């Protein structure tokens, strides 16, 4: 094994030990705060420090008792469905809008102030308004994701269009490309890496947003599951929830990164 790889595995383990130490420290100070070992038992099953025998939430993620009591897999799945619905909507609307803003100076002048104003608005600020409009948990969550994750897609797509060099456009002019041919044969290929960067940022935001949205809307989903754990004084589940949310967010980002690289001609070896 090479040294680099050893470091990549060993150094995070050192940090993990340190984190567990700090966590244990906090658990010994804060009353009722879950210890690392009890949290492990809550996750994977076993016997707690108080002698209770548990099935872990992660060792039985697929159970379905009733509409409101389902395993963590179903919670995550429900959240992912909403995330993808909002995300796909954001792509469908955001990419053409970004192309438009990037290609037309007038569109840029007209839309840029709104993009800049709405971009920093927190999902929590949108939520009440959207809930009021849709009166439906699912629709509200999806709409919140849509409206908070669309901005990076618009901005990055427009940036991609702007990065098309004059030289490529001159080639298109000499060959008398139609506007449609210019978009498909020149502008899109140049913009694709930018669009995917936007999509990656957007998916990250969507996953951040879903947890917050579900906490407020309730029902089923990993966000509500965590909130529910808090209401039931089940602090183990809060910590497990945080780790699950983090891991899934990380996986989503890795996935998007791989897809982005695939479509990025600058990173493709040979076509």
């Amino acid at each position, binding site marked *: 094994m090479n040294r680099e790889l050893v470091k990549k595995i060993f150094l995070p383990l050192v940090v993990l030990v340190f984190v567990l130490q700090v966590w244990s420290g906090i658990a010994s100070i804060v009353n009722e705060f879950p210890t690392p070992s009890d949290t492990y038992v809550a996750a994977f099953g076993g016997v707690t420090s108080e002698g209770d025998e548990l099935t872990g939430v992660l060792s039985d993620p697929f159970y379905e008792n009733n509409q409101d009591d389902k395993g963590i897999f179903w919670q995550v799945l429900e959240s992912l469905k909403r995330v993808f619905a909002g995300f796909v909507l954001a792509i469908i609307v955001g990419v053409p809008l970004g192309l438009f803003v990037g290609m037309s100076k007038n569109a840029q002048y007209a839309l840029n102030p709104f993009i800049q104003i709405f971009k920093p608005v927190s999902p929590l600020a949108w939520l009440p308004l959207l809930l009021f409009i849709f009166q439906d948990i699912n629709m509200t969550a999806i709409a919140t994701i849509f409206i908070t994750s669309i901005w990076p897609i618009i901005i990055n797509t427009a940036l991609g269009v702007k990065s098309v060099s004059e*030289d*490529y456009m*001159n*080639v298109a*002019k*000499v*060959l*008398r*490309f139609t506007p449609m*041919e210019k978009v498909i*044969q*020149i502008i899109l*290929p*140049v913009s694709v890496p930018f669009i995917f960067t936007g999509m990656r940022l957007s998916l990250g935001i969507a996953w951040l947003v879903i947890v917050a949205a579900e906490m407020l809307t309730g029902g089923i989903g990993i966000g509500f599951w965590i909130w529910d754990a808090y209401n039931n004084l089940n602090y183990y589940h809060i910590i497990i929830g945080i780790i699950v949310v983090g891991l899934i967010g990380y996986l989503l980002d890795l996935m998007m990164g791989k897809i982005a690289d695939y479509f990025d*001609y*600058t990173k*493709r070896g*040979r*076509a």
Partner: protein
Amino acid sequence: MSKFLSLEGIEKRFPIPGKEDYVAVTDVNLEIKENEIISIIGHSGCGKSTLLNMISGLDAQTSGAIILENRHIQGPGPERAVVFQNHSLLPWLSVYQNIEMAVKKVMPQLGAHELRQRVEQYVSMVNLDHAKDKLPGEISGGMKQRVGIARALSITPKVLLMDEPFGALDSLTRANLQEHLMRIQQKVQNTVVIITHDIDEAVLLSDRVIMMTNGPQATIGEILEVNLPRPRNRVELQQNPEYIRCREAILSFLYEKFAKDDE
């Protein structure tokens, strides 16, 4: 016989905010014969690119007319193919695909088989068969420029316009590309306008060398006929009295009559 390509009273002004227009070139009159190879030489900034961009239609003249086979030039078109200095290949397309894209667009009537044949013919013409599936990022600068030439010729333009096509290359690669160009030119026989600031290149390649005065208000200073038979051999030419005469004529124009001391 009517004229092939003529530039009549061309002037190009660039508006400068808050000031008078910058007159880059003025009063340019030139007739270019069919299958003629001419080069335009002049100090940097004298308006060579400006002139070529007007012929290509990528930029419009302020006044005057450019007429190709009795038609006024308006905007760019594939009958005036351009080889850009920085090759301008699309980096996400392979060598083959870059040429194919142009042929497909300009000759949409070609069937799949004819299309492939034609693209391969032009890949071969610049000796790039071994690299046809490579991306532009994977081949050398000289090879890229060869693809640029192949792409331009593959659409059988009436005029081939080249703006310092070999300017960014080292002298050996440059010589190699000049040979390619001369060899291809013997075969396809079309009209070529090539911008250069290299005296040897101008004499070696051209039937006539157009020498431009310095800007602003640059115009054609002298036109030199190069009466050398083809094919031309760069080594033999070094001793040729006509070659030496041409070189000296350009040298004297550039460094005595229109010397530029701020370079």
